[in-house]
């Protein structure tokens, strides 16, 4: 009996090729597109529920001769991902909804759907690899998506298939052509957050919390010492490390170095003030067993597309899922809300959400 695999299909090239490769490998493949949100008439070019993506995914499945279903995960996604996204901005942080979507939607809710379908496996088009039951970076360093996967339940790893993780994006496109998936082979990669189709996340915030919500209200732009140097139209428009939209006239380039929701202040400073030597990380999840302990040396990545740097876990609280990490070299723009992911070489140890950066080098308690 062929083993069944449920493939999450977005209509893009990566998940389409993933499904095609699994068919070729002899699995009993079931395709599914998750309906995660509905814009209604808000976004004229994209009718209700990203219909075009659903249609593309369905066409690919028809071409592959496999069933395709649309799964309505809208209410759970709204709760776990969209509301958290909005709340994080309200708290002056910069969330990564894709991380929570992987944690809660793809590798929890979708796994439950897989159970209901008697699917032994669950597959996606992520550029990451599962080797010997451990999550690893994707083979293509420019496409690696392991950074977004730290939050998933470790027990799911033994059921995950990531067929494109062992190839480069160029290879994926080549395979798409070879398999005759011309519909999506050259499809452009979307850089947007799926539920923010026009790239303006403040519209989602306004729609959810109201246009008069504090994070979208005017507030001061100030220096560390409290000197007000300008005004902004909502701190949710800013992220730590951002330069765009700040007043000029300073001797050196200025950056957002902190956001303070209580006063609605956006604090700016020169590049030197952005540098940090450590971070407090919360909601920590480990993908290895036994979990790392204080004193362990790890590689630390504090944002997507940045290099992992050497660091040491100086405090590990398993009960509070909190970690404090010291960085061997200063890192720029350690942004609250972003993910801090711990690696051992290519292997993902785990990760968490950055609570705050530390300008001084944290030291291990005696």
């Amino acid at each position, binding site marked *: 009996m062929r083993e069944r695999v449920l493939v999450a299909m977005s209509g893009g090239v990566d998940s389409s090729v993933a499904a095609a490769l699994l068919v070729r490998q002899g699995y009993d493949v079931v395709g599914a597109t998750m309906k995660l949100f509905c814009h209604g008439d808000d976004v004229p070019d994209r009718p*209700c529920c990203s219909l075009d993506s*659903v249609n593309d995914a369905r066409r690919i499945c028809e071409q592959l001769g496999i*069933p395709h279903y*649309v799964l*309505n995960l809208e209410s759970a996604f709204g709760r776990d991902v969209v509301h958290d996204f909005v709340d994080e901005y309200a708290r002056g942080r910069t969330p990564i909804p894709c991380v929570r979507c992987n944690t809660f939607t793809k590798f929890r809710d979708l796994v439950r759907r897989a159970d*209901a379908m008697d699917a032994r496996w669950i597959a996606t088009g992520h550029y990451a690899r599962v080797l010997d039951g451990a999550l690893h970076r994707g083979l293509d360093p420019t496409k690696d998506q392991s950074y977004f996967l730290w939050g998933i339940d470790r027990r799911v790893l033994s059921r995950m298939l990531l067929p494109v993780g062992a190839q480069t994006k160029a290879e994926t496109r080549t395979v798409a052509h070879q398999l005759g998936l011309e519909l999506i082979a050259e499809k452009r990669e979307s850089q947007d957050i799926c539920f923010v189709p026009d790239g303006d996340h403040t519209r989602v915030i306004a729609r959810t919390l109201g246009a008069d919500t504090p994070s979208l209200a005017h507030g001061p732009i100030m220096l560390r010492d409290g000197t007000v140097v300008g005004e902004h139209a909502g701190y949710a428009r800013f992220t730590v490390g951002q330069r765009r939209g700040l007043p000029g006239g300073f001797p050196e380039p200025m950056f957002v170095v902190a956001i303070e929701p209580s006063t609605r202040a956006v604090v700016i400073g020169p590049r030197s003030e952005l540098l940090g030597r450590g971070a407090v990380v919360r909601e920590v999840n480990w993908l290895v067993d036994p979990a790392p302990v204080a004193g362990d040396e790890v590689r630390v990545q504090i944002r997507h597309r940045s290099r992992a740097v050497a660091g040491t876990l100086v405090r590990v609280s398993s009960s509070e899922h909190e970690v404090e990490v010291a960085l061997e070299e200063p890192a720029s723009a350690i942004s609250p809300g972003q993910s801090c992911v711990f690696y051992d070489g290519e292997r993902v140890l785990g990760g968490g959400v950055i609570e705050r950066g530390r300008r001084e080098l944290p030291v291990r308690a005696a």
Partner: protein
Amino acid sequence: MPEPVYFDHAATTPVREEVFAAMQPFFGPRFGNPSSMHRWGREARTALDEARERLGRCLGASPDEIVFTSCGTEADNMALIGVWRARRGEGSRNAAVSTPIEHKAVLGALHEIAKEGGEERLLMVDSAGRVDASSFDALVRDDTAVCSVMWVNNELGTLQDVQTMAERARSRGVVFHTDAVQAFGKVDIDARRTPFDLLSISGHKIGAPKGIGALFIRRGTPMEPLLFGGSQDRGRRPGTENVAMAVGLARAAELAVAERDEECRRLQALRDRLESTILARVPDAVIHGREAARAPHISNISVPGTESESMLIALDLRGVACSAGSACQSGSITPSHVLEAIGVSTDVAKAAIRFSLGALSTEAGVDRVAEVFPMLAEKARRLATA
């Protein structure tokens, strides 16, 4: 996997062999346009005239009271919007009345009327979907242009008292329409006995192809066309007639009427077997609308603690085809507006599965469903609590 079984006849039915055979000449040598005066045209015209007569006989109607449409939706739209627009001139009849459990083809037409300035009213229904008589009296008045109540509900199978409602509507000067898409072939329909003014049917629910429907329009009913162009069908429905499909619909209708009593007995026995076996295996399963008189081919069942979307997929993967609620554009399942309207709680409505029986239903198929469905429901509950 054993041979898949089809329990979705309320969605569509296979084209019957007799129907296919009746249509074939019109895809071949008898291809003419019925509006042409030459021999090819005459041949097509003859077939169309006969189809109209034959379908009329099935409904107790005269041939001139039959309009062929492209589908049930078009028939419903024409009935409501056509009548409402035609009566606008009377000045005092601005309301259009229907029920909250209608097919979207009627509800959509009602919304369109509201957009054009009409007043949209919905009758109250009880927990089985039957129209509340006092609500009917309160809302269907001398300010009402048209009232539409479906004969058999497509999700529940519930039968309405069309006889009484049609009579009352007539006594108040209200044009009465009934969507009989699910009723035709299951209910004895006779326009001479029941004073409805308009009645819609759809071909593909009774063994004719998709793409053909019909609207009965009683003589004298005010009606504006929805399409404009030629003079086909007395200008009520311009556009070259679909001769082959009209012939197919007439043939399917004749067969359905001739076989009605026997087929209803057969389907009811199968449905009762399905429901009693499922209830024996899942005692807390809820069968919606069961307390009302129902058409014999529809059974709508919720197992609390399950979700229809997952259940439908699991059933499909095991070769059991059925349906639930209505699908949005993307194909994802949204809870049924019908179950909501009859007061079913959201949790239970979210679990609803509709099995609908018909030509392809057999005892063996029923037994298969009665085994697979409880097993999957049990599993879904186990997963939900895990």
